């Protein structure tokens, strides 16, 4: 992954905007931003963002490659789409934030142990395993991502919620053993593998290994 970062640095030199336009989902929209700041003021977790979308767009144009790609900011997007519907230039800001985050991860530049990044990876792995999400296994993976002790602590803290959901029949330990899933999960996984190959071909990436590849 580090290699890919070097490759991209060589290829795009100081033109980070061009790199974003070519490599990031919906990145070609970035140049349309007119810096009005409506996105920054509309963002759910906005006060927690180190760089709001408005700033990120300007930083991209200013060539602040490392600052953008190593930022925690995009990972705080809740996918509420508030910025997107309010943007006077109709930029698909939510998608650009996801695209930047995904690209940063792909280059190995995303912050280590970024909680949303880790959750996102766990989610994708979980839902593509059988074709459907197994909520219990996913929850356990998320809580135990920082080790057994911290996982047990988190589970203990949330034990009343777990018990409540169990009695409400919305959580069942049986999910550890039997999972919902697609009958043709092999077909699904073949299709996803193919999709990754096509995407890599189109974007000039190396195919990233996944659970299904």
């Amino acid at each position, binding site marked *: 992954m580090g290699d890919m970062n070097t490759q991209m640095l060589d290829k795009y030199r100081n033109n980070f905007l061009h790199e974003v336009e070519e490599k990031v*989902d919906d990145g070609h929209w970035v140049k349309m931003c007119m810096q009005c700041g409506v996105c920054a003021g509309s963002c759910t*977790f906005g006060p927690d963002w180190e760089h709001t979308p408005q700033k990120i767009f300007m930083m991209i144009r200013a060539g602040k490659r490392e600052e953008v790609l190593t930022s925690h900011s995009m990972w*705080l997007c*809740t*996918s*509420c*789409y*508030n910025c*997107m*519907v*309010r943007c006077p230039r109709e930029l698909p800001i*939510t998608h650009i934030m*996801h*695209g930047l*985050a*995904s690209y940063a991860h792909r280059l190995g530049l*995303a912050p280590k142990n970024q*909680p*949303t*990044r*880790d*959750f*996102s*990876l766990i*989610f*994708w*792995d979980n*839902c*593509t395993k059988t*074709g*459907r*999400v197994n*909520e219990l296994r996913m929850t356990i993976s*998320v809580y135990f991502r920082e080790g057994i002790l911290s996982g047990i602590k988190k589970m203990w803290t*949330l034990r*009343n*919620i777990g018990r*409540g*959901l169990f009695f*409400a*029949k*919305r*959580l*069942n330990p*049986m999910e550890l053993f039997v999972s*919902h899933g*697609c009958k*043709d999960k092999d*077909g*699904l996984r*073949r*299709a*996803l*593998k*193919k*999709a*990754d190959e*096509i*995407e890599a071909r*189109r974007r000039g990436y190396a195919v990233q290994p996944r659970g299904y590849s």
Partner: protein
Amino acid sequence: MAKREYAFYPGCSSQLRGSAANYLVSVESMCEKLDVKMTQIPDWNCCGASISYAGSSELARHVLSARNFALSDKHLPGQDIVATCAACWLGGRETIEKLDASSELMADTNEALKEAGLEYKAGTAIRHMVEVLVEDLGYEELGKPVVKPLDGVKVAGYVGCQTNRPFGIAGESFENPMYLDKLIDTVGGESIAKYEEKVSCCGGSLAFCEPEKAEKQIKNIVESAYDHGADVICTPCPLCQANVEVYQSEINRKQGTKLNMPVVYYSQLLSVAYGGTLKEAGLDGHIIQPKKLQDIAVKVVSAKR
């Protein structure tokens, strides 16, 4: 034969033992009363939700949605797909929009789907359940099966994000959509026109990975409902429902508050008003008991109408 038929895409959380299992139950009983037949798309798969972007490529996510469309078209041709989950619906709409706009993306999606022996042809429509209710049936028709009007139940209509943005329900504004309030009023409840948190975000899936930040949102959503004297919050989204109900106890634990506001689905309101039992309306599926609705559900009404 049912009056209306749809291909049903319930989504992962609605499955048996899932966090929104009671949503599915209430939708089924509501649809039965409305003579709407929903047939599950055989072998449907997860939509990828809004959170899987780090681990997946954009194309792979379109392939997930397109596989469901292809299966629907193959087994239930001509039927609109109905999703009950906001994220499933949104993901599907995005795929349709993107694939319609790009023949290259369409070709790529089908090249991948071929591996599963499927083909997606343009022309699929995916609708949210509330679109079916308000557009295909209409408020007047929705009012007809009411046998137990929700008299005296004050409901904060919490629309949240993803049934509202970026696509939304036709004719509604992003800042103040009215359909949920109208649904509440249609079944005899009392909606709250000035509920400030109507379209706020609950934190979505980040409630998992950034709990403190999401809890701040949830606290506002619940406290605003209290400020307006609400008995219950009602939402069209399974993640909103789960987040806003489930984490109240965590907020109480950390902040010493006494939040205890029940959160239900629109389909549960309709199901109860149509005479559904506790079980049929999924009212046995809550951590915070929606007492007023449960009382109505167990109340016996005379047969004459």
